[in-house]
């Protein structure tokens, strides 16, 4: 393992601690999907993206990211804080009254790092496409990233956007789907199966990659490969296989921890499994 990967994994451990503590602190929020995507967020913000924590909403001359499945806000907020967008002490205000860290991300309270509100599902890919087109109009060669959930693909708007991007050669866009196979009411295969997603996105005209989302080395490799495929006339899609709740044994692999907060005892059990690498908030 390279020193770089080890460093990223250390950050991801702290982000996971933050997630569990934040959700416990307000006794609400979505730990499962947040934990599963911690490695992806760290790979993006601490390795892949060229971005500026001195936040400018227009993001001209930098890579920008949109979170479409806004309910995994804990991992987004922790990553932004750890990357320097705002002080980590603010993580303690998550979902509490008068906080900039709303239940779902919003621009309304001007939290640095957030460029659009999300939470009502299915809208982020369209917004990311718009931002990609603005970058082209501005002759800005930086990239736009967007993350969606897999259950979210049941929203029709996603497929409107899926059709639009290849037709219009939106090739400065890297979309990722968090394939954890779970949604609120159970496994996606049982609630409303998504079928062969690789075949679906390829049929729509996307350049599709797959990755294990809880393997930092492979994530970095895939994100680097994805970047090399931009600018070639097709939007790029990463189908990212993750495990919901990854890093906390009793939360792993089940939809039960989609939107449930741990109690004091469960918090202690979880934190015992997650090393404090960068100092808690």
């Amino acid at each position, binding site marked *: 393992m390279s020193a770089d990967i080890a460093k990223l994994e250390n950050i991801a451990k702290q982000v996971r601690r933050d997630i569990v503590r934040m959700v416990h602190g307000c006794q609400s929020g979505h730990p499962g999907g947040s934990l599963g995507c911690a490695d992806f967020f760290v790979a993006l913000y601490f390795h892949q993206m060229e971005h500026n924590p001195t936040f400018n909403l227009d993001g001209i001359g930098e890579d920008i990211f949109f979170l479409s499945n806004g309910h995994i806000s804990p991992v987004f907020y922790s990553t932004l804080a750890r990357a320097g967008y705002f002080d980590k002490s603010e993580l303690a205000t998550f979902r509490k009254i008068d906080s900039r860290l709303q239940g779902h991300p919003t621009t309304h309270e001007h939290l640095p790092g957030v460029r659009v509100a999300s939470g*009502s599902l299915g*809208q982020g890919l*369209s917004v990311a496409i*718009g931002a990609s087109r*603005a970058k082209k109009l501005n002759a800005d060669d930086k990239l736009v990233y967007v993350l969606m959930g897999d259950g979210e693909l049941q929203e029709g708007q996603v497929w*409107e956007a899926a059709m639009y991007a290849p037709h219009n050669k939106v090739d400065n866009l890297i979309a990722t789907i968090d394939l954890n196979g779970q949604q609120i009411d159970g496994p996606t295969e049982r609630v409303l199966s998504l079928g062969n997603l690789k075949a679906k996105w390829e049929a729509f005209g996307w350049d599709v990659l797959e990755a294990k989302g809880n393997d930092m080395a492979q994530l970095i490799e895939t994100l680097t490969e994805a970047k090399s495929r931009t600018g070639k006339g097709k939007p790029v899609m990463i189908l990212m296989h993750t495990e919901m709740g990854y890093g906390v044994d009793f939360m792993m692999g089940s939809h039960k921890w989609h939107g449930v907060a741990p109690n004091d005892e469960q918090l202690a059990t979880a934190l015992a499994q997650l090393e404090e690498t960068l100092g808690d908030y």
Partner: protein
Amino acid sequence: MKKYTYTDKKDTRSGFGAGLHEVGKKNSNVVALCADLVGSLKMDAFIKDFPERFFQIGIAEANMMGIASGLTIGGKIPYTGTFANFSTGRVYDQIRQSIAYSGKNVKICASHAGLTLGEDGATHQILEDIGLMKMLPGMTVINPCDYNQTKAAAIAIADYDGPVYLRFGRPVVPIFTDPDQKFEIGKAWMVNEGSDVTIIATGHLVWEAIQAGEQLAALGIDAEIINIHTIKPLDEEAILKSVAKTGCVVTAEEHNRLGGLGDSVSQVLVKNHPAPQEYVAVNDSFGESGTPAQLMEKYGLNAASIVSAAQKVIKRK
């Protein structure tokens, strides 16, 4: 009664097309999006001169609203174009989250609003859009009355930073406002000063209100006529100043009586200066097929309806 005449008639959507083209020349950040209704929205001139700033979205209005939101990130000023029905009800949550709550500088431009869409019938005749849009925090709602005012509004909204709903229509109607007018968002236009009754009208009903004013004058009734082109933010000062003089109000709009201009005016009166009010609006129903003139008569949205509403409200003083 001040005399208003016209020499030409045009559709307000053509005013939008002309305004979009003009503002496109002035401001290189203006971009346009359309969901497969370029001809109906009169966007051809803009597309011809600025093809790189035009985005054909296809029949996918939800995606259009999202893309418009994204385009603002990087400084663009997107104008979306489709029918009023597909600009509002169909995409309400996209507008709510990705545009209004996110505070995005998107101009939602909506044609074929109301009954005057005509023969296509109720599926396309939205009469609830003003209500839907005015309820969104931070949304500005504008419903201009003729070609010139629509053109001026389409140009003016580019200089305002924030989400706007611009509503206009399909039929050819008289052009009676100044071609060189300065359009000021939120500022009422005093059409005619009078002392017996205040008629507050928006959109296609403004010309009808002028016709009604002439008929009322012949009956010895001196009507004050105010054009509210901006339903939100509402020019409360103009309304209160007028009602202090006349003591009663008729509101006139091509919209459901629930949730439209009439309700906005009513709130102002109740809070500040209670006075009798009559609504000229669609009485909580859907529309139907027919010519615009037939529909406006059947649903009570013409000069004759305004005249009888004025006579009725004066008696209630």
